[in-house]
């Protein structure tokens, strides 16, 4: 006789279970169970991972959910697909009528889901147990009702034995009820964690759930330390008096033959005109599009499109392409920019349909990277849309088109990470708030991967002021490690949407999202992909919004510009790129990109594609960057790791830079089949902790050895391929991004006012703070005008003389409603005076004060101080009777603001200044100390000792940089880059991380016009009490 656990709950019960589904399955295998039932709380969140793990382990997965009812919990097991669909719809209904994260299912509602499901009565928290504790007759009536609704054979009285005295008394009552009602018994363990040690973690999660410390949790915690798992033999022994309860687990499990392989999901059909099939219609619209794209529609393109269409027909994907085309068409018709990214750019059909903007025929891109017979999965088309309201319009269009229960966003499972784990676990252990602050700052994985090393972790904990010898601290460290990657709650994916033929809520339960008018499914994008559910990514890209707005601004000034037909070889653009003058330019504005541009010297579009792809963790760790740049500069010869790889690597001078090249190398040099290459592709893009890459590496080594590739070449190729697991771009994706990079560079070069204005209006985005963008605009001769109630709109605008007028949105503390009122009232007529402004706009005290402080009221005939003097009186309303009396002009007794005061007010009120850079005020003193402005660094020879100073605008500590910190210092002449060695960083961590103004002394390095200072000494400078924001990246 065996036993099957039918009531396990995973960490996807969010703070109620302490183990991931994979760990539960592993434990079930250890105990020799042939099947396992997962019943997560009010959902099937963990079901896909559970299903995958069971399939991998060769045991059967049983799906269900533990529903929350007014009387207690009601575990429901799925018997058939109908039952699964009923359960999903039931959970959806409950969730959609409740607040996020809440929801109670009534028994009447649950009865609707009865068909195809079996219900258990639950453990100690089960509804029957709760009622039995209250009133035996009530419990009996409830069980009777359950049997009536589900049918007598569909309800099992559940018994659990956890070595608890009170539970035994309860079980006696339950057995008696079951005998009276002739209900079968079933034994379960109500498993909530995998290993015995999981109790500790489970206790901590319980405390987090109840917002209580361990010291105060009392009987909320687990009663005993042993695991909930028992072997079949142990279960037989424990239930020796009730053997049928154990036997029934097997017979009941045999009835539950539903698995997630039988979901019944179908992608929607596209409605085609009469007389057309989806395939014929796709051909029609593709060829029509191709004739627009290819002028002339040449034979090579025609052949490629025909090949792709045949493949699409063969794989029955015509509907999918038509639906994505339909979304893109909606965008076009509504004047919304949309551009496909990722591997879709490898498809000429996508290009012809207007989904992507890169010509794959012209660029000789590999279609199979996007779609192949061997992949056996749906293609992935990601659309970039302007972020914000414009993208929301597209999302709502999809909801309207496919129904509120036919489409939903994919979920994003929020898991514990360093900072969140430190804070929440520390709180449970009762650490004081200041210790929690220190822990959450120190236990972040910012730029380092080694925190899972015990000694480093304990070192950090000691730094936070805790005694590492104490048991409490050691337990904290243990739990901090164990809780990593455990689900915390469900979020929403940034743009992944799934749609369904029929009702999506029959496939997976839907929940309300935090954003209005949005629903989210209970599975993340990888789960959906694993189960064959098709996702369309509608991603918001700040740069798309900025480009869109910049084009509108250019057009509104009467000039014409067509994004699709920008001159491809614009010398001004390439000169700017070669000079690394790229602040604000998409994808090539980072410090590392800027350091590469002068060496790479892009001269054509493909160079830009390379530039976009080369500064990625894969190429950097694979040490591909320097060989490529040296070969390009003619400093070293172009050689190939193996003669057979020349056709693959010729275009990138013998160095692989794109994902496709790695796949081809594996196929050519290691004899990978298409399927294995596909496996490699998935491993390269797989973000979950997995050892897939290690397995593939073994296969790669075997393949290379078979082909006689040994020694250094062997290792080089392995390094190339495995390093891409860290992240590298496919060529098509790089090309799509390069298009946007070129467009943004073109706008910066030719329409700078519109470009900067659009950037300022779409923050936050990119690498730099608005203050830096403003300074960069000024360096480029753009006139930036201050915020002024007589001229400023809510958003930044370009004025008739092509100067940039800062928008009211940058006045800190000004509400959007007030800003829009200022704009609207002024359109009626200009403000005559402060009193007039006050009367018409009705700002609150803080708002009018900030406007006065930043000089936004100056055009009402007063300077900042005078305005501040007047507004203090003006905000005391005279009331309706007296407010229209002529204003008494009272002279201000205050002195005007000094230059420094104006600057401080600007930073306080707007986070930036259009006046002189703060470093101007320090320059004389710094000059005497020999500190050089950033712009003069290129005059200094390499190896000389220099001093630079500036505001810290970026701190970056990439994982690939082996602990080095890169700091960008901005002064009135430009930006200086500082490199800090790991040891220096450790010694001066606090100073480096907390100083807004920094003086750095070090050795100048000038490598092919890429200038940086290797730091040897730091000094924090007086910050004028200005809080300059720095963008810190890991």
């Amino acid at each position, binding site marked *: 006789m065996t036993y099957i656990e039918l009531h396990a709950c995973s960490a996807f019960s969010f703070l109620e279970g302490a183990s991931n589904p994979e760990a539960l399955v592993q434990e079930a295998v250890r105990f020799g169970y042939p099947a396992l039932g997962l019943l997560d709380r009010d959902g099937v969140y963990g079901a896909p991972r559970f299903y995958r793990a069971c399939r991998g382990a060769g045991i059967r997965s049983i799906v269900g959910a533990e529903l929350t009812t007014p009387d207690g919990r009601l575990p429901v097991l799925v018997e058939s697909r109908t039952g699964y669909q009923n359960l999903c719809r039931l959970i959806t209904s409950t969730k959609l009528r409740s607040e996020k994260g809440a929801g109670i299912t009534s028994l009447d509602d649950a009865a609707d889901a009865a068909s195809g499901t079996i219900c258990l009565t639950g453990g*100690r928290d089960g509804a029957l147990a709760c009622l039995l504790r209250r009133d035996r007759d009530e419990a009996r009536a409830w069980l009777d009702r359950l049997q009536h609704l589900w049918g007598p054979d569909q309800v099992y009285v559940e018994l659990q034995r956890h070595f608890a005295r009170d539970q035994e008394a309860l079980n006696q009552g339950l057995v008696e009820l079951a005998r009276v009602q002739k209900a079968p018994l079933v034994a379960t363990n109500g498993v909530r964690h995998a290993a015995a040690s999981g109790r500790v973690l489970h206790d901590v999660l319980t405390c987090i759930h109840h917002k209580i410390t361990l010291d105060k949790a009392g*009987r909320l915690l687990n009663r005993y330390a042993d695991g909930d798992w028992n072997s079949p033999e142990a279960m037989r022994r424990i239930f020796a008096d009730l053997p049928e309860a154990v036997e029934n687990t097997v017979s009941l499990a045999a009835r539950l033959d539903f698995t997630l392989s039988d979901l019944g999901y179908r992608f929607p059909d596209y409605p085609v005109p009469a007389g057309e099939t989806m395939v014929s219609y796709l051909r029609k619209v593709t060829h029509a599009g191709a004739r627009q794209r290819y002028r002339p529609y040449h034979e090579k393109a025609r052949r490629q499109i025909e090949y792709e269409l045949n493949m699409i027909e063969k794989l029955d994907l015509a509907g999918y392409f038509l639906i994505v085309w339909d979304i893109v068409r909606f965008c076009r018709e509504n004047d919304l920019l949309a551009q496909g990214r990722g591997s879709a750019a490898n498809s000429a059909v996508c290009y012809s349909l207007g989904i992507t903007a890169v010509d794959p025929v012209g660029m000789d891109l590999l279609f199979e990277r996007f779609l192949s017979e061997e992949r056996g999965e749906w293609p992935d088309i990601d659309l970039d849309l302007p972020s914000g309201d414009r993208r929301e319009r597209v999302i709502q269009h999809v909801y309207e088109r496919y129904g509120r229960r036919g489409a939903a966003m994919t979920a994003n499972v929020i898991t514990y990470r360093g900072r969140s784990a430190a804070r929440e676990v520390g709180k449970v252990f009762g650490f004081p708030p200041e210790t929690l602050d220190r822990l959450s700052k120190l236990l972040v994985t910012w730029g380092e991967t080694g925190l899972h090393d015990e000694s480093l972790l304990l070192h950090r904990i000691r730094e936070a002021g805790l005694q590492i010898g104490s048991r409490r601290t050691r337990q904290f460290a243990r739990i901090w490690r164990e809780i990593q990657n455990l689900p915390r709650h469900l979020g929403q994916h940034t743009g992944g949407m799934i749609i369904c033929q029929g009702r999506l809520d029959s496939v997976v339960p839907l929940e309300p999202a935090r954003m209005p008018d949005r629903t989210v499914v209970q599975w993340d994008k990888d789960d959906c992909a694993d189960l064959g559910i098709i996702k369309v990514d509608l991603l918001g890209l700040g740069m798309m919004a900025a480009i869109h707005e910049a084009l509108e601004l250019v057009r509104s000034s009467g000039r014409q510009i067509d994004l699709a037909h920008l001159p491809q070889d614009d010398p001004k653009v390439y000169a700017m790129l070669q000079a690394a003058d790229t602040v604000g330019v998409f994808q090539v504005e980072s410090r590392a990109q800027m350091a590469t541009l002068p060496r790479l010297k892009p001269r054509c579009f493909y160079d830009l594609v390379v530039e976009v792809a080369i500064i990625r963790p894969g190429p950097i760790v694979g040490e591909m960057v320097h060989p490529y740049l040296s070969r390009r500069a003619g400093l070293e010869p172009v050689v190939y790791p193996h003669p057979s790889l020349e056709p693959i690597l010729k275009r990138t001078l013998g160095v692989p830079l794109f994902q496709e090249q790695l796949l081809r190398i594996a196929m050519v040099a290691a004899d990978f089949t298409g399927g294995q290459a596909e496996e490699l592709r998935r491993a390269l893009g797989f973000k979950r902790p997995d050892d897939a890459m290690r397995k593939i590496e073994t296969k790669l080594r075997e393949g290379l050895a078979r082909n006689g590739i040994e020694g250094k070449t062997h290792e080089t190729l392995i390094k190339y391929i495995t390093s891409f697991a860290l992240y590298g771009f496919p060529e098509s994706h790089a090309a799509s991004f390069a298009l946007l990079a070129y467009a943004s560079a073109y706008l910066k070069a030719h329409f700078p006012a519109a470009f900067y204005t659009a950037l300022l209006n779409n923050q936050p985005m990119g690498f730099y703070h608005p203050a830096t963008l403003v300074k960069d605009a000024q360096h480029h001769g753009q006139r930036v005008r201050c915020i002024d109630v007589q001229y400023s709109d809510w958003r930044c605008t370009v004025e008739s003389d092509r100067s940039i007028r800062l928008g009211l949105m940058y006045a800190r503390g000004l509400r959007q409603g007030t800003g829009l009122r200022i704009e609207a009232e002024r359109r009626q007529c200009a403000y005559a005076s402060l009193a007039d402004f006050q009367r018409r706009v009705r700002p609150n005290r803080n708002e009018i004060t900030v406007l006065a402080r930043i000089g936004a009221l100056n055009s009402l005939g007063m300077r900042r101080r005078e305005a501040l003097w007047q507004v203090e009186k003006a905000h005391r309303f005279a009331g309706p009777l007296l407010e229209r009396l002529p204003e008494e002009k009272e002279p201000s007794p205050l002195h005007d603001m000094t230059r420094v005061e104006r600057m401080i007010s600007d930073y306080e009120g707007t986070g930036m200044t259009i006046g002189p850079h703060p470093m101007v005020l320090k320059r004389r003193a710094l000059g005497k100390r020999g500190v050089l402005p950033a712009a003069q660094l290129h005059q200094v020879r390499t190896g000389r000792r220099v001093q630079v100073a500036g505001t810290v605008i970026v701190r970056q500590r990439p994982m690939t940089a082996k602990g080095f910190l890169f700091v960008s210092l901005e002064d009135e002449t430009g930006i200086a880059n500082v490199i800090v060695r790991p040891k220096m960083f450790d010694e001066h961590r606090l100073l480096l991380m907390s100083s807004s103004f920094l003086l750095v002394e070090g050795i100048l390095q000038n490598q092919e016009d890429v200038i940086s200072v290797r730091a040897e000494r730091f000094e924090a400078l007086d910050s004028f009490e200005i809080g300059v924001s720095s963008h810190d990246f890991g």
Partner: protein
Amino acid sequence: MAPSRFIAVFSLHAQRLFEAAEMLTPRVEVCPPDGVLLEIPARREQETLDRLTHLLDRDVRIGGASTRTAAILAARMAPGTLVPYHRESRFLAALPVTALKFCMEVEDALFETFAGWGIRTLGEVAALPRASLVARFGEKGAILQRLASGEDVGIRAGYQPEPEFKEEQELEWTLNVLEPLIFLLGGMLTRLCGRLKERGLAAESLCLEFRLDDGSSFRRELRPALPIQEAKILLSLLRLDLQTESPRSGVTGICIQARPAHPRIVQHSLLQPTAPHPEKLAQTLTRLKGILGGENVGSPRVLDTHRPDALHMEEMELASPKGRGKGQRKESDRPQLDRHHPHPEGGSRLALRRIRPPRPTRLCRETIVSCAGPWRTSGDWWTEGLETQAWARDEWDVELTDGVIYRVYWDHRKRQWYVEGMYD
């Protein structure tokens, strides 16, 4: 009339400050939280300063001026300064605006407004047009400006020291026997309680200090279960306490200090059962504590934990001013409802006669007729090493050949069987 001068003094030792001030002048005002203001004739200024310096620590901050405001600000912002007559506004002019917070309650927003105006000193505030300030801040604007000019605004609270309930007596001879000591204590307590009664107060606690002939002292603290006004009762409690623990050598001096509190007045209800008289109960409790030890007498409170028989002994509350009835408990007294593992209702139960503390035992398989269990509990796994509360045990009910059912448990940490009780 001779002009007055004001001396402001601030010190961390407020009590000593008040005592010293009272010695110098009856015109003492309080400057919360840690200062006093002395009003003195101008001619006595230097003398007062000298005496204050002599009486107080060096770390006091003193300032003198012809107005209260200027004296306070001098003491706070420039300790040791004596502002010359009619030079107050000149002295204050250089002080930062934020100094105003020492003279009145000023919200931070107002200082922010001044900062925005570029007004940094009191002199600049004083120079602003008063009418304009009133138009902006109302009456407060005028007050601020007057203060900034060194003028006094408003009336300050006079100083009234807290009464002290203390009796001291030096003995001419050494006392080694309890009875004469009790006799002396009786007299002292009568006087003390008389003073307490005059103010409608009672003694919440009594601190006794006996100076001993070996130069040391012997201290006792008596905390009756409720505030007591009756010297007789206090004396009997003291007697019981001293019988439990007496001075180790002869007594040469006695000091008794009472902490005053309002006596508890309870309206008894006809419907409530009669309880023992609180004072008598207090005596009984004190007697019990003397016999059993303080930690073993009180009200037991069941702790919210899975640890069996876990309780905490709390100080017994004899009567509540709110008139809580017998058997009624505070919400916090009640163990939390166990959401995960509620105690079952119903079912037959046996009474367990507990053995406290549980007794180590050895189990012999042959003597066991039947058994039920194990019932497992463990917890407090996060607690510290030596003081750990962590426990882990397996509990069994065993029927032995003698026909008695015992509750026994195996302590996993001590690796030992214990018998916890017998079922009736």
